[in-house]
């Protein structure tokens, strides 16, 4: 075998702390290495051309590139090999940037380490096989999980692109957080006026199947061929029969049911339609509040329903859908504001969250758009807004900036002034973060045109005083303590990962960060992809996002799915397990440990043997480690290859 080694300088990234020339020289001494050189930028066009030329000139059968992480450029260099007519799996990478030059300053130690990593790669490459990719069919349907604005956008884009879309939403209606907003920054246009038509498009689109009040139960399969089981929760109403007339909701006697849609500041009935523009506009029963379901009496709704749609005995239903790609758009949850004891959230009735305030501002909210204090229904005059409640605070485990709170607070001060011209808003802030288009201008308008008083500092305590609240804080710009008497306190709560996000990530086999937000494939270059092929991200499930970014990401995820489905067949990864029939004793251990059901026991000339279903195998190698005979081997990571690496390092 003729092996060529290319040691990349990566400008000064590697060459700064590694003697690349010495590494290349050392590589010439490794077995079967016939050519070694150092190169300025191996991944650049001239760098790749140099590799192609060397392959031809020295008749190379395999190439080692020592540069950055294979997670960055393995695919790039494999294509280079293909261009030169080599099998693309005759390639190995030594990571001498992330694992060497960037973490150590000692040039001598780094050079030695880089040399050893190259030696390992060479020894592994010597045992590589020529692998050939197969092909498999893909199912061109897509599932979007989450019906907020990002999910809606992704679903509509995919559906317009001709794909069949299944949209799964946990709540009874799509619309997500955006449907609860009154107006949106920085244009102050009405939220439901811009989201409503999109929701209707979803309902009417011939390519979209909508499952609301549903959750993903389990996910099996792989890119192009996922089997997703969806749990359709009991609404206790036959939605095929329900026309959304609302007769049941007016007659239901359980009128004190907490209203989830209105953030629990209003009440609703046990059977309800969440809001007037709900899609689908169908009634569902809150089983915890329904007298019939809890005590067995009542049943008024069933009596008044003109279409006889009420089904008290309805059960959850499991539906399995075959899809080729999945877009996760599960959004976020709001921070639990009761964690800040000093603000009195949960104890003082007039300390509310920004989302509750949003519902007070909304014409479709519990007060029909009149700002009323929850405690006595009086109109507040002085309103204090406190920012960064659950953002940028390490002490409560939320060190990140939620990004949109500065903006929605500015919007709420503007709307407050519009609703009540003689009111005064005070905003306690840490920093104003308004980097979007027209965002900074918007916050300035709130201060200058609408007279919101911005006070830079944290609030230390809120105390009740004569039916009002005394807000004590510091003005760090003036360097003095301030006290403001307020009728209402609004806490600008930050975003956190949606409840159950971790469980869903585990079902989808994607990673999530310490806060529960899903991890993208690469923070800059793969913002909507995940490390699991065929699964994409949109919206705030990846991190807090405002509406424009969520929509943009929904578009991007849909574009990725459309690109994936532009082919009828996908190339399968040939780095899968294979069985040496002679060694296999048919014990079935590999079959029992395979997480994907990719191994079946077959009859081979009267003997039981294991057989790998190559398109199902994902290449984890659990079977290879389990096999007592060493009969099943994961290509590209065989026992011999790994042991060769270990031996190179030790001996």
């Amino acid at each position: 075998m003729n092996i060529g080694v290319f040691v990349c300088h990566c400008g000064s990234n590697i060459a700064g702390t590694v003697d690349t020339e010495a590494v290349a020289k050392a590589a010439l001494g490794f077995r079967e290495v016939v050519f070694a050189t150092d190169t300025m930028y191996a991944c650049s066009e001239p760098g790749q051309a140099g590799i192609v030329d060397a392959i031809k000139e020295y008749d190379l059968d395999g190439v080692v590139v020592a540069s950055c992480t294979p997670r960055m450029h393995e695919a790039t260099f494999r294509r280079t090999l293909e261009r030169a007519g080599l099998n693309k799996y005759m390639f190995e990478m030594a990571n001498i940037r992330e694992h060497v030059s960037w973490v150590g300053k000692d040039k001598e130690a780094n050079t030695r380490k880089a040399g050893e990593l190259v030696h390992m790669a060479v020894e592994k490459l010597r045992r590589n096989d020529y692998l050939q990719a197969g092909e498999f069919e893909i199912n061109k349907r897509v599932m979007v999980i989450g019906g907020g604005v990002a999910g809606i956008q992704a679903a509509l884009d995919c559906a317009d692109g001709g794909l069949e879309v299944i949209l799964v939403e946990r709540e009874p209606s799509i619309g997500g957080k955006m449907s609860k907003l009154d107006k949106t920054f920085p244009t102050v246009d009405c939220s439901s006026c811009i989201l409503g038509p999109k929701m209707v498009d979803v309902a009417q689109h011939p390519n979209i199947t909508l499952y609301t009040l549903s959750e993903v139960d389990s996910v099996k399969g792989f890119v192009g061929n996922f089997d997703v089981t969806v749990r359709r929760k009991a609404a206790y109403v036959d939605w095929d029969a329900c026309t959304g007339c609302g007769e049941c909701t007016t007659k239901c006697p359980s009128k004190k049911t907490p209203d989830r849609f209105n953030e629990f500041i209003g009440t609703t009935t046990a059977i309800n339609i969440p809001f007037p523009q709900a899609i689908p506009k169908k009634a569902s029963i809150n089983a915890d509040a329904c007298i019939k379901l809890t005590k067995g009496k009542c049943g008024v709704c069933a009596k008044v329903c003109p279409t006889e749609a009420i089904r008290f005995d309805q059960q959850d239903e499991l539906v399995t859908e075959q899809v080729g790609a999945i877009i996760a758009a599960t959004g976020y949850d709001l921070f639990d504001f009761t964690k800040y004891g000093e603000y009195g959230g949960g104890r003082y009735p007039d300390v509310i969250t920004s989302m509750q305030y949003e519902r007070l501002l909304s014409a479709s909210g519990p007060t029909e758009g009149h700002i009323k204090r929850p405690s006595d229904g009086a109109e507040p005059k002085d309103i204090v807004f406190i920012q960064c409640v659950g953002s940028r605070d390490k002490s409560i485990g939320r060190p990140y900036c939620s990004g949109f709170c500065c903006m929605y607070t500015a919007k709420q001060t503007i709307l407050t002034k519009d609703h009540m011209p003689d009111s005064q808003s005070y905003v306690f802030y840490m920093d104003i973060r308004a980097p979007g288009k027209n965002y900074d201008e918007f916050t300035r308008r709130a201060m200058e045109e609408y007279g919101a008083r911005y006070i830079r500092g944290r609030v230390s305590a809120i105390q009740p005083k004569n039916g009002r609240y005394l807000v004590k804080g510091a003005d760090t710009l003036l360097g003095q303590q301030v006290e403001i008497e307020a009728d209402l306190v609004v806490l600008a709560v930050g975003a956190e990962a949606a409840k159950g996000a971790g469980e869903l990530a585990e079902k989808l086999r994607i990673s999530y960060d310490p806060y529960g937000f899903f991890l993208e494939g690469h923070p800059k270059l793969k913002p909507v992809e995940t490390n699991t092929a065929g699964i994409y991200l949109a919206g705030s499930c990846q991190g807090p996002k405002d509406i424009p970014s969520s929509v943009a990401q929904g578009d991007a995820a849909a574009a990725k799915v459309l690109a994936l489905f532009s082919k009828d067949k996908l190339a399968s990864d040939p780095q899968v397990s294979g069985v040496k029939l002679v060694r296999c004793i048919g014990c079935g251990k590999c079959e029992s440990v395979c997480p994907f059901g990719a191994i079946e026991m077959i009859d081979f000339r009267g003997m039981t043997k294991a057989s790998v279903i190559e398109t199902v195998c994902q290449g984890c190698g659990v079977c290879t480690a389990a096999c007592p005979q060493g009969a099943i081997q994961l290509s590209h990571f065989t026992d011999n290859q790994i042991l060769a690496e270990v031996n190179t390092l030790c001996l």
Partner: protein
Amino acid sequence: MSVNEGKELRIIGFLCNWCSYAGADTAGVGRFAQPTDLRIVRLPCTGRINPLFIVRAFMNGADGVLVSGCHPRDCHYSEGNFYARRRLEVLKALLPVIGVDPGRFEYTWVSASEGQRWRSVVTSFTEQVHALGPMPGFKSGTSLDMCLCHLDQPQVR
């Protein structure tokens, strides 16, 4: 002795491609300085690790072996790290029997976003191995040597 003084020791890391390898990359991108002793072997999953790789590394003179994968329940292959945990736990109990100080072996979970955690794992493990010093050579007739004799027999593979 601090890890930066004196001779480097031979520490081998078996890392899962999806979490810890990416975590080590994240640490590199963040320029989190680390001791240089560790050499990383990239594997698709910690579930791929045959505990005998680790025994073999010790037999061949490794001073320390570190295994790192995805946090439990966060595996790219859904359950590979559970298999790893089961096997490595048994190995850990076995190491003293074959004459290897269990302090020379560690397995841990580091996710792709935890560059800072990776740095502290590498630093503390390297310090731990340095405190134990170089691996003493194996003489024939020791239990590890006996283990070596049996390694290639099918019944123990």
